[in-house]
């Protein structure tokens, strides 16, 4: 595996001047490509995507999943077992949608992991903090919930001066 170190002065983490503590993140020093490759294609990666598919019933970007999964594997020492437990609960309930089994996940580590996975997919970030790890911007699911009318900031919405149109209804949420 290729290993590299972020060069001084250019690391994204240094963009996050807001008191970002690097402690705990040293595992991820270096470009994404390097640290995700070890996780890519492993059984755990596949299991993580399976878990994600149960928790979020939308199209999930493979690349974003790789980033979130690789991070989760570092963050949760027992990721493997936890995934087994959550998947078992879903299977027990015969669930194909998150609503059918989420409440059955016991409070505590399992529930925390499950919700962290959901939050990571929707926000594209490891937390709401200024020093959070970013997994994806373009594929963060929050934007998908409103993409019929709201742009992902920094990506153009329409041709020049063509954006004024009737407001979209609040519901239903577009399929994504």
């Amino acid at each position: 595996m290729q290993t590299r170190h972020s060069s001084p002065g250019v690391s994204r983490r240094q963009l996050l001047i807001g008191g970002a503590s690097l402690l705990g993140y040293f595992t991820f020093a270096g470009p994404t490509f390097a640290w995700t490759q070890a996780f890519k294609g492993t059984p755990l990666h596949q299991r993580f995507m399976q878990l994600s598919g149960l928790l979020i019933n939308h199209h999930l970007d493979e690349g974003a999943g790789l980033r979130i999964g690789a991070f989760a594997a570092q963050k949760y020492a027992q990721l493997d077992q936890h995934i087994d437990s959550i998947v078992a609960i879903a299977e027990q309930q015969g669930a194909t949608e998150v609503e059918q089994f989420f409440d059955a996940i016991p409070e505590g580590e399992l529930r925390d992991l499950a919700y962290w996975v959901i939050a990571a997919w929707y926000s594209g970030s490891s937390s709401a903090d200024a020093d959070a790890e970013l997994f994806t911007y373009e594929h963060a699911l929050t934007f998908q919930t409103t993409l019929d009318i709201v742009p992902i900031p920094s990506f153009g919405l329409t041709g020049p001066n063509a954006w004024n149109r009737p407001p979209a209804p609040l519901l239903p949420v577009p399929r994504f």
Partner: protein
Amino acid sequence: MMIRRLSRVMAALAWLAAPLPLLAQTTANDADDETLARGAYLATASDCTACHTAHGGESMAGGLRIASPVGEIVATNITPSTSHGIGNYSEEQFARVLRHGIRADGANLYPAMPYTAYARMSDEDIHALYVYFMHGVAPVDVPTPPTKLPFPMNLRVAMKGWNLLFHDATPLEEDPEQSAAWNRGRYLVEGPTHCSSCHTPRGFMMQELDDQAMAGAQVGPWYAPNITPDDVGGIGSWRHDELVTYLRTGKLDQAQAAGSMAEAITHSFQHLSDDDLSAIATYIEALPPIGPSDGEERQGDRFSHGRPSDELVNFRGDSYAEGLEGESRGAQIYSANCASCHQPDGRGTADGYYPRLFENGILGDENASNLIATILYGVERETEAEGHVFMPPFGEQPNAFNALSNDEIADLSNYLLTHFGRVDENGKASVEVTADDVQTIREGGPGSPLILLSRIGMGVGIVAVVLLGYWLLRRRRAAKR
């Protein structure tokens, strides 16, 4: 529909008639309104202004400087100024320019002036053009600097031999076997709109190869693509109305005009009548289909490749500098410079204004010149239908969005070609761009043998002069920026 068409024609006439007040001051018998309007329309169809009006300059007053490796060519003043324009030309002298490429003083024109096409026009139309230029264009008494080229490029006489060999000065004749639309289309295409000047490949002596008509050719930094109706090599998949729309707007989901074609649409095609654009499409659709120039058997035309995709996983969340050093350098350059409009996965905006990049001719073509040239020079088109379309350049211009290096453009191009172009079963792009390729386009296009020939000297003077003319013709619009 008919009303719309009529209104288009009226709009075109109104546009063309802008200089008409001059008419009131002239008493020329032959300058009747109808002839004048016809002449104006033909001047638009012929896109005279593309070369003979400098940016920000007076209409048809020349002065546009066209850089060449052997010196600057200056487009001439063709207003009816008697001191500095063509005001003293008789109709016969005027016709000799268009039909034979010979000026009033007897000197031969370089074929930068596409008289080889204009020669096919009818006597009536050349008369109308004469009337328009004498009475519909405002005289501008301002000289243009003389074009001074070094020996042997200054041997205009060499063109005489070339004309003898390759130039057909006879007006086109109606083909009774074909429809009126086809005949009108052929007349426009072979005559005033001079499509073949760019789209037809040339032989050793820079003559157009008739058996390869419209099969695609390099035009300075741009590549005028195959526009024959071939299902693989050409535009056989385009519907008739799509071709008309393209000529009117320069824009389809699968193809957008840039470079010289954008200028031709801005100044010329968009102003033609619906009937004439339809006629052009009719003729183009009936051309002999010609397959890809590489002769390769394959499925799908250049508008059928690629799909939305990205490589964001390899750099998003890292720093930009890391992204540029990483595995997905081309993708990082794309994201930072292109994705804001063309979207992260190349899908374009939902309204289609910013084009999708997959299933787009620029990326599915067997020639990457247009891709590189678009990045280096940007896109600019202005039409009534679509407004002022502008993609910023990424070359060395003061307004370049980002002055990308040859390496960066090569990496970007290869990313685009891999994701949105034609790939083999292993996902390898069929066209690859190197930094040298980018440098070539940066310098104005692939290998004009001009410089070498000029060094060899007089022995190849004829070829050199013709080459220069050819080169200039192809370069002229690109050089205007």
